[in-house]
């Protein structure tokens, strides 16, 4: 088990390094540089631009910039964010908790909702309810995340203004609210982005889980349970669901990258100040080191998520422990 764990960690490190190198190359290939915005000002002289580029090492050849960055990374430094005028580690340390909060709520919410919908569908398989829920889950499954986000924004902040437009808290009032009111303020800001992610992710969970439940239904032990006189609800809860939950662990591992990338767009749409918000804005402003830093942290999260799912799977399924 330890050897397996070490091998997977080694693979994860290689993947993160390759992703970081590709991102570094791609963002440098994009036209413009972090001082493009300064270029768009008739009062800034060429001398100032050259000085700024030299100060940040952007006048050096690409290979030198890359090796300098790798060297800094080896010393635990993620570099300097030009757009925030802060170390990248500080920017990401501020943003990461917000992303983790959004993703955790979305992950838990989508699995609870998805499994519940699948159970209802299987309990009423072949009925109108089953077909209607299939249609609804297909609708959300095929809907682009940014589109649903924009619709939610329009519907619940403009037509029916019950939620705030964006951000993680009310920047004007939050500091002056009491403890309970602060929590409510944060929850109100969390509602729309997390609901959007939950609706999108729960659709795939429901479809996946419905298929898994239907696979278990014809099994001999289910027939035995019926013969024992258990009710359909008891059979579903005690026997079918428990045995159909194993593939869900795989789905958690697969959902992690999907949720993270989805969260990038959703954070941008709802101005949720997480990692995705910081990285998407950094791409626009060509904040090279913040983009690469964000991608490194993101890929670490994805590889660790997958690794945990694999370990969880091995732990949950006794047949796999020997392998």
């Amino acid at each position, binding site marked *: 088990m330890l050897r397996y764990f070490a091998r997977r960690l080694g693979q994860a490190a290689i993947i993160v390094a390759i992703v970081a190198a590709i991102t570094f190359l791609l963002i440098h290939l*994009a*036209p*413009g*540089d972090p001082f*493009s*915005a*300064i*270029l*768009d*000002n*008739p*009062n*800034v*002289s*060429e*001398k*100032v631009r050259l*000085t*700024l580029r030299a*100060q940040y090492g952007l006048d050096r050849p690409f290979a030198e910039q890359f090796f300098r960055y790798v060297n800094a990374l080896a010393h635990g430094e993620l570099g*300097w964010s030009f*757009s*925030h*005028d*802060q170390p990248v580690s*500080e*920017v990401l340390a*501020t943003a990461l908790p917000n992303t983790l909060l959004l993703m955790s709520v979305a992950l838990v919410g989508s699995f609870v909702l998805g499994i519940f919908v699948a159970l209802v569908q299987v309990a009423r398989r072949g009925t109108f309810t089953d077909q209607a829920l299939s249609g609804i889950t297909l609708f959300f499954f095929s809907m682009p995340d940014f589109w649903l986000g924009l619709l939610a*924004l329009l519907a619940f*902040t*403009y037509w029916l*203004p019950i939620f*705030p*437009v*964006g*951000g*993680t*808290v*009310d*920047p*004007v*009032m*939050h*500091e*002056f*609210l*009491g*403890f309970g*009111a602060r929590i409510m303020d944060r929850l109100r800001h969390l509602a729309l982005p997390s609901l959007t992610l939950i609706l999108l992710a729960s659709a795939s969970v429901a479809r996946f889980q419905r298929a898994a439940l239907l696979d278990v239904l014809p099994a001999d032990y289910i027939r035995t349970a019926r013969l024992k006189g258990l009710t359909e609800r008891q059979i579903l809860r005690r026997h079918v669901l428990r045995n159909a939950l194993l593939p869900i662990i795989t789905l958690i591992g697969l959902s992690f990258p999907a949720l993270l990338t989805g969260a990038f767009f959703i954070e*941008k*749409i*709802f*101005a949720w*100040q997480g990692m995705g*918000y*910081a990285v998407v*804005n950094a791409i*626009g*402003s*060509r904040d090279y080191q913040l983009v690469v830093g964000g991608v490194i942290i993101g890929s670490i999260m994805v590889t660790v998520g997958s690794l945990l799912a694999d370990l969880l799977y091995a732990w949950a399924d006794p047949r796999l422990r020997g392998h």
Partner: protein
Amino acid sequence: MAAVRYTSVLCALLVCGCGGESGRSAGGTVAIAAGSDPGTFIPALAQTTTAAEILDMVYDRLADIGDSLNIVGDHGFTPRLADRWTWSRDSLSIAFHLNPNAKWHDGQPVRSSDVRFTIATTKDSSLAAPTASVITNIDSVSTPDSATAVFWFHARSPQQFYDAVFQNPIIPEHVWKDVAPASWRASEQAKNPIGSGRYRFVRWIPSVAVELAADTANYRGAPRIRRLIWSIAPDFNTLLTRFLGGEIDVFENLRPENVAAVQKQHLGVKLNPYLSYSFMTFNLRNPANHDRPHPLFGNRDLRRALTMAVDRPAIVRAAFDTLALPALGPTVRAYPSTDPKIPQIPYDLAAARKLLDSLGWRVSGRDSIRVRNDRPLRFSISVPATSALRIKLAVLIQEQLRQAGVQVDVEQLTLPAIIDKAGKHTFDAIIGQWNTQPSPGGVRGSWGIASSRANGNNWGSYESPTFDAYVDSAVNSFDAGRQRQYFTKAYETINNDAPAIWLAEPRQIFGYHSRLQLAPMRADAWWAHLPDWSIPADKRIGRDSIPPTAAATTAPAESAGKKTR
């Protein structure tokens, strides 16, 4: 602690409810839309509008420009840190006498050494301050005593007073002296500014908000609005929805299509003159080889014919309705030196067709596109994909030039890609917009020869010694009338050469919450008189009742530049 704060809010509500005369005149919060983080709080390095708005509240200049935006001599300038000034007999030096009551927000007095330090560090090349290039006429600052700062100039110049005061908000030497200028951006001081302006810095939560509180003991008097908040979101629609929903009080740059929705919500809309003009610049040099002229736009007559084929007033009407005027040239009407009757190339489609025919560009066969030596008259206009307005302008130009037999391709790119193309001169035409400063002499940076040859912002590489000479004469003229005449000649020269099609001079569409009582707005900075705004006590809403002292006292406990919660 949270309970204490909450209680203090309630107390403030009660105080406001039974406030006397002073309670009615001062108080309230103004939440302002900000499209970006300020970046840095160092005045010499600030690049964003958000930073300019905040820094003008936190820092003071020696004197401030008047609402007429006169930059010749000191006419119209109003005292700030300097309560008076004296010109030397030869005008090569100006002695500024500091207001003895002026203090930094940390309680230290403002001294003349602070002024000397500000100028010396701005000129320090390791700081890479964009303003360094516009204060080159300042030789040095001497300090005969702690209350007098004497500016010494290399040469007498009509705008030497403007150069001395406008570009240089004064910073405290005791805060910055131990930090090398090259390290200023990364310093803690840059995130926690200490100024002498009418508002003091409270906190910055990156990507969320910046908060300032009124400096009630300020030497210029306490501002009426007690708290300012910049609510940050890079997305335009997010900010607009916040404004329409009442979360934000001020939206400085609404788009023409937003006006109806804003008025429907009973919010105020005000049109201001604005120091901005949009244009479509032609690249006069070959994109593949900068040493050669552009195969199309190297020809002055062709540029004139294209300009003649574009009905600019119709385009401006279609894109902006009544919210902009056709641009007069590389200038704006708000400058006192701009003559609104500058001669223009008139719209005349028949004459444009005739001129194109005479240049050998003829319509042949079934194709309606003109051809010369088997080469079609075709070029591309690059526009930022994020600007719906510029895309609209490009499409309108495309359609109008089609009627003259010219094929135009509209190329939508990201803003960094556009700027990259502009800097490398690898484009045919670009639709751009310059936001200018109060000095019309800035036109040299965008259309002058030096800027073209130093790879500056003269993207199209327009070079005219005549234009430059007229601008130089205007900038060096002490007589306002003569200055206007020279600028008119300069604009006439460039208009005749047609290096660009001057499109629109938009007016600023300023949205505001109807409870705000605004002061007059300056064309270069709507926020210049923000400390004089007020909110009547009977119109105040929840956020107006937060006590400023509560906001100010949180400052030391917060770690500036870091998310606090």
